[in-house]
Each structure stands twice: as structure tokens, then as C-alpha cells.
């Protein structure tokens, strides 16, 4: 008999499962975002001669991509694979 899950555990299960298509997209997308932000902010902070701009923007972009790609939001769950019917 299945025990009723607590709130934290059911929230974890909900945010854990993600589509295969969106996993492939997320694997490439977070790297692209962080590399683009780091290159642009490095060049900008090289002109202004302040390294804080570069570090804070790289950390900010990483927090943004963690919030966007790590939990399985509803828009990452759209393309479910088509399972065969049970025989």
C-alpha cells in the first residue's frame, strides 16, 4: 500500500523528471549562456578596468541558468515519449 508522500518529497519528484528532448536542449543551453556572458563581460570590464563586473555577471548568469534549467518546470515536460500500451 503506497504511503502518502510528504510535501518536500513530492515537490522533489515533480521537479526531478524532465523530458529527453529538453534534457538535450538544457545540456547545450547553459554552456552557451555562461560562455557568452563571460566573454562579453570580460571585454567590457577590460575597458573599464574593473574585474568585479566580470565576476558578478558570471555568477549572476549561473544563478539565472540554475533557476531556469535545473528544476523541471512544466514547459520542460511537454514532449513526453510515446510508450507502448500495456499488454
Amino acid at each position, binding site marked *: 500500500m503506497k504511503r502518502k508522500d510528504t510535501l518536500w518529497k513530492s515537490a522533489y519528484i515533480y*521537479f526531478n523528471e524532465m523530458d529527453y528532448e529538453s534534457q538535450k536542449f538544457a545540456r547545450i543551453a547553459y554552456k552557451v549562456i*555562461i560562455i557568452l556572458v*563571460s566573454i562579453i563581460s570580460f571585454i567590457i570590464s*577590460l575597458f573599464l578596468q574593473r*574585474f568585479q563586473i*566580470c565576476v558578478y555577471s*558570471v555568477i549572476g548568469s549561473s544563478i539565472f541558468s540554475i533557476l531556469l534549467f*535545473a528544476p523541471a518546470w512544466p514547459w520542460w515536460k511537454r514532449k513526453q515519449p510515446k510508450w507502448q500500451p500495456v499488454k
Partner: protein
Amino acid sequence: MYSLTARFNQIVFFTSCTLATLSLLNQLTAWYLMNEQPSANLTIHSTEKFHFIKANHYNGGKTNWDQASFRFSLEADLKPVFTWNLKQLFLFINVRYNAPQTSECVIYDKIISRPDDPSEWEKASNLALKNQRIEYPLKDSYASLKNQTVTFEVWIEVMPYVGFITKQRIGEFPYKMPEVYS
């Protein structure tokens, strides 16, 4: 990418790798593109308080030393070293002479930290000290400072945010000590 913790772990480690490469690039663009060297100009105005100290209460009267104090002016152009990688500069004046053995003594030091705003670097990097007293008097245990030729060297110790701490000498000025104790 199959679970929450796996994705979180990958993103965090990737940001730390990019921060490490950016710091390395920071160090390379700051130091290895430097063409000019910093320079300094030191003039000694006078020697004051040139004594022979007889300390009878140390070591049965066998410990005696020479002591000298100076007044100097120092101008230094430190603009080439002021990059975005610099945290602090430690500037000190070293005295070297060839008495019974080669001896060195630090007589003045100063910490110069770099302000964050690049528009304030001009003021902070042009060092101009006028008619200053030294901080630590020049002491010689062998009492051989009379009539001695002595070189004053100005050194800089560079402390960056990312990289090794390096020392470099930016000026060398010879001087002759007076013949009589004053």
C-alpha cells in the same frame, strides 16, 4: 542531466571552471602586456642623529652599535604597475653596505593600495614624499658606519589579486656617510 542534483552539479562546476579561466586571462593581460618599468628618484637631504651607542647594561658592556637617521625626498612613478590585477604595493627603502660583511637594512616602508575607481589611479600612483624622516634607524653592530659608502635601493613588492607575489628594484642611489659623529 537526468535528475535535479545532476543538473545543479553540472552548472555549478561549469561556472567555477569559467571563473578560473577568466582569472588566468586577467593575470595574463595585466602583466605580460607591460612595456614600461616603474622608476623612482630618491634624494637624501641630511644625516641627523649619527651616534655611537654604548649600551652598558646589555651583555656586560660588549654590545655597542652605530646608529644613523636621515631626511629624504622620494618621487616615484608607479603608473605601469597599476593594472586591474593589482591589490597592494609594498614600497620599501633598503640600505646596503660592505662593512666587515655585506649588510642590508630596511629603513622605510609604505603600503600603497589601489583604489577601485580607475579615475583615481593617477593620484595614487604618483608618489611624492617631501622631507620625510625614516621609520627605522640604520643600525650597525660592528660600528663601521663612519666614512662608509652606502647604497640606498628603492624596492617594490607587487601583490596581485591573481598570481605570484614579486619583488623588483626600481632605483639605486649611492651616498657617503659623514666622517664625524653628530
